């Protein structure tokens, strides 16, 4: 177990280093933010002065060395455009992303998984047929469209909820619904397939033959065995949700990381993009590791290498 952990942690460190270097150089290949910052018609002299003030006239390797030296001391640098430490900016956006991601996740799991299980157990029920339509819609409707539709109905026509922003507690509801639709459909589909798979196995027939009611077979045996694919998908979905939902955050003006990333990429605010990507990579790696550990907890047949 510990050997497994150490190896995975080392792998994670190498991945993070690779991501850092890659994003650093890729961004600089696209130019620098100076031309975006100056007014139209700025003289070359003024452009050069700003470029040198921001350090973009220095060799890229020297810039990289500086960045890595800062990173080693957990200094993520300063936003080029906003003149504020990156940690402050990302730190102010992170709670919003977490809040939205958690709200969406609760909705997606809370509706998606029970729906999927129901669709598997009662395949011919009308609700299951509607459910399949819902899964298809959830996976194919673009969020910019469903987002605008939600705003039109609940903010403009009914006036129940705010269309945008994050000032009120109710502000999270519309973006969370919009964001959860895709995950909800994914969970429903995966849960349905997993449960269907399990239902065809001999132990289910044996349990039924023994006289156990269907509900008990599902809750006691099938769900536990069918949880593995749901857990691995959940890890991916959480990572997706936490790295920021660009379109949903833009449509609902939700001040999360997705919106920040988009704006920072457009403004060539390198240190912010760098920090957000690094955070996303970290969350992804961490969640995958957690999922691996969870497998063995749920299914005793899965033993981690090096474990006893």
């Amino acid at each position: 177990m510990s050997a497994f952990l150490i190896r995975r942690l080392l792998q994670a460190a190498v991945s993070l280093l690779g991501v850092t270097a890659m994003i650093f150089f890729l961004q600089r290949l696209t130019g620098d933010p100076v031309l975006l910052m100056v007014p139209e018609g700025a003289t070359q002299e003024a452009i050069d002065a700003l470029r040198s003030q921001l350090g973009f006239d220095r060799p890229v390797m020297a810039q990289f060395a500086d960045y890595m030296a800062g990173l080693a001391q957990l200094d993520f640098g300063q936003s080029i455009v906003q003149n504020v430490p990156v940690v402050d900016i990302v730190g102010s956006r992170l709670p919003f992303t977490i809040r939205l991601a958690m709200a969406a996740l609760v909705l997606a799991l809370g509706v998606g998984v029970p729906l999927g299980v129901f669709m598997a157990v009662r395949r011919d029920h009308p609700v299951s047929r509607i459910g399949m339509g819902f899964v298809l819609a959830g996976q194919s409707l673009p969020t910019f469209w469903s987002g605008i539709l939600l705003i039109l109905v609940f903010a403009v026509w009914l006036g129940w909820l705010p269309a945008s922003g994050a000032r009120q507690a109710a502000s999270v509801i519309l973006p969370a619904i919009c964001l959860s639709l895709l995950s909800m459909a994914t969970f429903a589909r995966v849960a349905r397939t997993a449960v269907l798979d399990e239902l065809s196995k001999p132990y289910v027939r044996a349990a039924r033959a023994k006289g156990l009611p269907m509900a008990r077979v599902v809750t006691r045996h099938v769900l536990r065995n069918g949880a593995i694919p749901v857990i691995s998908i959940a890890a991916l979905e959480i990572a997706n949700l936490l790295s920021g939902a660009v379109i949903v955050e833009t449509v609902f003006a939700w001040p999360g990381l997705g919106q920040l990333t988009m704006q920072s990429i457009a403004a060539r605010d390198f240190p912010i993009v760098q920090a957000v990507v690094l955070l996303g990579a970290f969350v992804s790696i961490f969640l995958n590791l957690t999922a691996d550990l969870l497998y063995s907890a749920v299914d005793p047949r899965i033993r981690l290498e090096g474990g006893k």
Partner: protein
Amino acid sequence: MKRLHCTLLAAALAATTALTAPAVWADANRLAIDLVNEPTSLDPHLQWNPDSYYVYRNIFDNLLTRDDAGQIVPQIATAWEQVSPTEIVFTIREGVKFHDGSALTPEDVVYSVQRITNKDFGSPQLSQFATIASAEVLEGNKVKLTTKAPYPALMGQLVKLSIVPKAVVDAMGKEAFNQAPVGSGPYKFDGWDRGVEVRLTRNDDYWGQKGSFPAAVFRAVPDASTRVANLVSGASDLVVTMDPDLAMQLEAADGVGPRSALTERVAYLAVNGAKPGLDDLRLRQAIAHAIDRDLIVEGLLGGFDKPVGQLLTPAHIGWVEGFEGVPYDPDKARALIAEVGEPAKRKLSFATAPVFDQRIVQALQQMLTDVGLNVEIELTDMATYLKKVQGDPAQSPDMSFGRWSCACQDADGVVYPLLHSSSSWSRVRNVELDKVLESARGELDPAKRVADYRKVQEWIRDNVSQVPLYQAAIIYGASDNLKWQPTPNESLFINRMSWSE
């Protein structure tokens, strides 16, 4: 499993509580304005973007300002006198107080000039003030600015010079000041929730026209449809950056409507005469004759914008009254292209960026295709576009779309950077034209300046370095209750707005 049930129940309860919370979003005491993005910086010397400008311009007073008619009028300077071709003496208003209670002095004015013109400070606005050689305090509450050469456009630039308190900036430092700015303007900085909103409160001790709203809030709402939804549902009172289609939607909705003004932005099609094929004047003339600017304005821009025949707008000093550009004449364009022959068949690159209205770019492409040219649109992000249209003309795209604003309402800020050989924004290298541009830049006699600019516009028309298209309009959406008229310099002065009752 039991625990999961509890969590779900709690979540459902939380959702219901939120739903039953009172839905009060509008507040008569607070003006709510939706911007596209949040300000990048509220230090007026450290930014150059509209979302920052809209906000900080209410917190700070500038040396000069413009009234609603666009005339330069006193703000911190009450009077000014050109004492020599390169020296102007400004009288500084007495009794002005910064929001921390300290008095605004001539020293603060000099400090502000020195701060923004200091190369090591790194102001994006350096080029607008780079002609200032020195600033000094004179006896009797006066400040003298000396320019490196005679520069009549300086007054238009000084409209953008915000006065910051020297003592506060020195004490707080650059980073802290940008997050909690202290100015002398009609509204005070109240708070900034990153990514959500910036709040201002009224400065009740303001020396000038006081605001009618006790408070104002600027929110970042990147999606235009969402801004419309906020306005229609009453969550905001004023929203920025609407297009003609959204303006029509607003006209159809109750209680709200579009507000627009013609700005000092001029849209143009730049033609790069340094590229093979386009070095033939006939081909450039064909391009100019192929463009129907009236159709663009009426058909695509909903009539909000105004066609222009010169590379300028009526909002600029240097506008030549009655000047006509190259007329729309597709038959003549076809004849010229036939005359040019083989070189006219080359594929011409046409650079644009997502910030521009792509329908205009596509319409231009279509018009050029209709007369027999082969035009390929190159759409890249803004940073790449700017890099492409700058620098060596031989490496630049064949054509590019642009909407130019110098934010100074002076011809010098438009034609000098776009045409002078020394400018990286210019595709033109012409010694004679350079002389006219230099003469116009330093000419203190307004009539002689306009005469120089007429020569420049004639040169543009005859050589087709650019095809001027239209004076761009800015469209806002506003509640019908809001009394306010937008201005050409795209300002949102809250103290000039009120509820109409």
